[in-house]
């Protein structure tokens, strides 16, 4: 993204808001008129999109983009850790129950 510095925050906000609204479409694709149905696909996509948002918040809103390499790598590692923990616990739960 090589946008002018002034519009970067706004573009970030637009992307994050779009993903948030996309959630509604995601759920609608699997729900049946108010009756919710389980779906690993929806759950996985929801978690992955949440991780994308989290990384955007780190990079753009929290300005990690301009931070030293250590913090950039640490926050990326954190996004991976969170993703691994959430997806891991979800699929482990599915496998066991």
């Amino acid at each position: 993204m090589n946008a002018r510095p002034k519009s970067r925050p706004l573009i970030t906000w637009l992307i994050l808001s779009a993903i948030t609204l996309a959630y509604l479409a995601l759920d609608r694709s699997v729900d049946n008129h108010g009756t919710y149905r389980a779906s690993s696909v929806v759950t996985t996509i929801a978690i992955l999109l949440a991780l994308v948002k989290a990384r955007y918040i780190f990079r753009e809103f929290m300005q990690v983009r301009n931070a030293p390499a250590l913090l950039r790598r640490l926050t990326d590692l954190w996004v991976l850790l969170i993703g691994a923990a959430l997806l891991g616990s979800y699929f482990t739960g599915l496998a066991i129950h």
Partner: protein
Amino acid sequence: MTDIAQAGPQPGAAGRPPGESAERPARAVPGQPDMWVLVLFEALVFTAYLAVYLFHRSAHSELFLRSQADLSPWLGTLDTLLLLTSSLFMLRCVQASRAGAFRAAMSQAFITALLGTAFLASKITEWALLVHGGHGFTSNEFFTYYFFLTGIHLLHLLIGFITIGVIICQLRRRERRSQEIVETCATYWHTVDLLWVLIFSLLYVVR
């Protein structure tokens, strides 16, 4: 609290060329590096809570889905948009402060607080509606998780109001104003947003 210790050029320093962007030219940790310990630690703790929730969700899939249907995805989406917008204004506040535009920065800080208050009002309304509809903290397992996660998040939000207050106090000072403190508090506020993004997707969106 009056130390201005940071790498890179001082913000709002005399002699800044006109038209220079508010972007930090040198690589620097935004705010105190110490605050990042809190950010990363709390992110892990919340991840632990959410992992426990996800693990138990699959044990009672029907119950969780049925209860989840009583949540309003519109309110949840509104909440998320409110916090995302508040983060936008918080970033604008930090950039304005860095460029020396303290009046503008104060307005941005107030708007951030306003959006945070709107989130608070929305959350309390949602809780009231749920309780009125017969769903409380002890109603069933899903709602225990729901009220616990949104409750502990709300606590973080309330602490966030304190940090905004600190930012406003800093911006009002003429002397010994600390850009580092402003950025440190901003980092905390963004964490509130970050945590909500995770909670929202797991309580409202996953199936």
